[in-house]
């Protein structure tokens, strides 16, 4: 049978289970006596085994089976959790992840796992008293087996040929079973599950009839339950077990069919009837579950695109309504404005995902790295449920991995050093995420050695980034920021983990690409804190529209510190450069029209204003000819042909259909 159509499902679920394994194993490592966690791990491994076996990925099934043996021994307290065991289990997960990656790339799951299999076997035996091939205890899982009362043969609705086949089977010492499979209510791909069920029992016998018929089953034209008649030499329990390896199956009922004319129905059930009642009570108990659906991301993107069009048209409509000046029109347009604002919030919320999806791989990473580095490090994650737009989350992983590695490698000292300095032997790295206004802040804070200002300065001078005269004037912030300059690395030793000198500048450019900033604070000997500030969403922002000459530009409100009238300020000249004094700081005053090559730059407007904007660690001021007011704008990229233009982060469509460029305040020099 063609399994390709279920591959996507398999990959998705496989990933989830592997992540779950990773998470739960870390929990187990911290609390080796928590048997409930062992059970959870066991279940994930077990499901993974069943899934991969039914998809024909034998190496994967094999390895998970070995893991399962160890876990089984563990939960029956035949062996104890040891560090070796955890290492071996983690290693197995790495192998499984690699296999899954291979499968994703369209290869087979073939992989040399003999070493790890040997390790697992040794672990399983050591401490295991009896290595009895204990059958998997299915009652542990939620798939409570229940075999129903005998039924009348008429219920099976079989025709003569089928009865004949059943009789023949009986003569050949095979049995015919009526099997009823009940899928769970939240089952997504009923057809896929059904086919997986048939795959699971393929080779054990023959399916002679299905209800509804096969075609309908494959089209998912059934309601959670489908039944089939199966002729086999295997025991019903074995078949049931096979079927239950497929996930999302609520229960399986198996009845033996006796050939016609024979009156006595044989019960295959030896299960206590209480179980069935228990099952019933479970199903009637009202469970408050939030109903969710999975939606393809493309659809969400499409929805957002459509909404952006709507926002542009709304802008046009507002402009027209202002020109017409009709009260009815105006109030109606205002209503549309309000509703679309709510719509915007809802749509953007749909796209929000918790940063957890990025954070959840870090505990593993920290565990591995601290072993490699011979350091003792504890990672404390807070605010993993903080939500960010999906497009940001996608770009966030790499920069955070780098910052985290940086903290582990350069920040946290070796245990001996820490003890000598009167610190706790175990270093702590805090990974925090939280909302702040229209931003999401992610902080990585370590209690390590801190950053040595002098070392940074020396290195920066050596690399020609600054001169020694400049260095004395720089604030700590500015000095630390030099680390993000390209070609800068202070690690005395180049290590695998970080310090190739290509790191932090890439981090910054990646973060800037998604509209964020990164800053550093540090106290020598106490530790450092890297703060990443990100916008909540990338696609719609609040912006101030300004006029320069005849042209209109948009400046993100988030970059603006203050606007004032030109005549209110007093320009000074320092080193032949214009500056103004704002709140006791010297702010460079630049000629934006010149920077943006605006034609007819000499016309002077009476509405001239000065705008002060934020750059990563200082302010910048420039004159604009007119402030046109603020509005929500939709950010569009300039397209592949122009990719990046200095000082411009994108473009937007104004109410009159014209394009306005969006200023990138960070990149205006």
């Amino acid at each position, binding site marked *: 049978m063609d399994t390709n159509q279920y591959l996507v499902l398999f990959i998705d679920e496989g990933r989830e289970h592997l992540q779950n394994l990773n998470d739960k194993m870390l929990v187990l490592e911290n609390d080796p006596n928590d048997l409930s966690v062992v059970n959870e791990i066991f279940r994930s491994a077990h499901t993974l085994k069943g899934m991969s076996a039914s998809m024909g990925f034998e190496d994967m099934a094999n390895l998970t089976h070995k893991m399962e043996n160890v876990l089984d021994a563990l939960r029956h307290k035949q062996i104890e959790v040891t560090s070796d065991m955890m290492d071996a289990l983690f290693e197995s997960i790495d192998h499984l992840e690699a296999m899954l990656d291979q499968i994703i790339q369209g290869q087979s799951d073939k992989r040399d796992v003999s070493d790890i299999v040997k390790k697992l076997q040794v672990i399983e035996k050591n401490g295991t008293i009896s290595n009895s091939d204990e059958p998997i205890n299915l009652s542990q899982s939620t798939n409570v087996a229940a075999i129903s009362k005998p039924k009348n043969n008429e219920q099976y609705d079989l025709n003569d040929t089928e009865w004949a086949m059943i009789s023949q089977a009986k003569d050949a010492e095979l049995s015919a079973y009526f099997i009823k499979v009940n899928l769970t209510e939240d089952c997504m791909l009923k057809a896929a599950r059904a086919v997986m069920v048939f795959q699971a029992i393929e080779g054990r016998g023959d399916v002679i009839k299905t209800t509804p018929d096969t075609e309908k089953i494959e089209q998912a034209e059934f309601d959670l339950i489908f039944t089939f008649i199966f002729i086999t030499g295997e025991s019903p329990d074995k078949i049931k077990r096979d079927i239950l390896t497929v996930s999302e199956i609520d229960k399986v009922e198996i009845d033996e069919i006796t050939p016609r004319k024979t009156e006595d129905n044989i019960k295959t059930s030896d299960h206590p009837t209480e179980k069935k009642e228990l099952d019933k009570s479970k199903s009637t108990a009202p469970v408050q579950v939030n109903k969710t659906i999975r939606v393809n991301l493309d659809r969400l993107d499409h929805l957002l*695109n459509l909404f*952006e*069009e709507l926002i*542009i048209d709304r802008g046009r409509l507002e402009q027209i309504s202002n020109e017409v000046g009709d009260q009815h029109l105006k109030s109606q347009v205002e209503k549309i404005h309000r509703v679309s604002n709510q719509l915007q919030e809802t749509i953007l919320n749909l796209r929000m995902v918790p940063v957890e999806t990025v954070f959840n791989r870090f505990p593993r990473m920290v565990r591995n790295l601290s072993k490699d580095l011979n350091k003792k490090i504890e990672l404390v994650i807070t605010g993993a449920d903080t939500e960010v737009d999906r497009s940001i989350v996608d770009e966030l992983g790499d920069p955070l991995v780098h910052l985290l590695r940086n903290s582990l490698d350069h920040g946290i000292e070796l245990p001996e050093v820490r003890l000598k300095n009167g610190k706790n032997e175990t270093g702590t790295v805090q990974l925090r995420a939280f909302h702040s206004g229209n931003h999401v802040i992610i902080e990585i804070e370590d209690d390590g050695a801190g950053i040595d200002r002098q070392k940074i300065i020396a290195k920066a001078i050596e690399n020609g980034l600054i001169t020694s005269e400049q260095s004395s004037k720089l604030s700590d912030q500015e000095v630390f920021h030099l680390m993000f300059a390209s070609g800068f690395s202070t690690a005395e030793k180049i290590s695998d983990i970080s310090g190739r000198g290509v790191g932090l500048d890439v981090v910054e*450019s990646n973060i800037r690409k998604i509209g964020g900033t990164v800053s550093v604070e540090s106290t020598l000997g106490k530790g450092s804190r890297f703060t990443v500030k990100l916008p909540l969403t990338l696609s719609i922002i609040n912006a101030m529209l300004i006029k320069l000459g005849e*042209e209109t530009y948009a400046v993100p409100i988030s970059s603006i510190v203050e606007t004032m009238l030109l005549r209110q300020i007093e320009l000074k000249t320092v080193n032949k450069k214009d500056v103004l004094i704002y709140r006791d700081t010297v702010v460079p005053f630049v000629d934006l029209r010149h*920077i*943006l*090559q*605006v*034609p007819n730059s000499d016309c002077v407007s009476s509405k001239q204003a000065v705008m002060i904007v934020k750059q990563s660690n200082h302010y910048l001021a420039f004159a604009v000819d007119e402030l046109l007011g603020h509005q929500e704008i939709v950010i*569009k*990229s*300039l*397209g*592949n*042909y*122009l*990719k*990046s*233009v*200095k*000082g*411009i982060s994108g*473009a937007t*469509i104004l109410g009159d*259909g*014209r*394009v*306005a*460029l969006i200023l990138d305040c960070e*990149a205006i020099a």
Partner: protein
Amino acid sequence: MNQLGQNTKFILFELNEETFGVPINQVVSIERPQAITRVPHVQDYVKGIMTIRGLMVPVIDIHKRFNMAESLKATEERIIIVEIDDMMVGLYVDSAHQVVDLSPSQIEDTPEIVGGLEAEYIDGIARYKEDKLLVLLNLKKVLTTNEVNDLKKIEV
């Protein structure tokens, strides 16, 4: 030059009374001139950026791209929107109003220089309607030669 050996449709456009052609499968649409917003720090032949159905499309002034003199009597200017390798670009031309069907036999290889255009931008020359000559542009080259790559790299 035609790899398929079948007839290909070309959209014809005029520049300084010379006729050029681009394969129809690279053309997204032909638009009337509309507001174009100037973009700073780009090559001078990039007229600016405009929007077509919500997409941002940079517009290239083909005259300047090929160092031709500006047309004086163009009154039916059009912007031909083309898409090549995920790049959508508008070509600002004097006029565009014809589609021709060319068979491979009508297409000849490029002589060294055609109308001041370097041969690398040209896929071939075609004869159509008695003795009219038509220059077939290699848009990929026009959009991706070094100059354009420079343009992409202008600043980070």
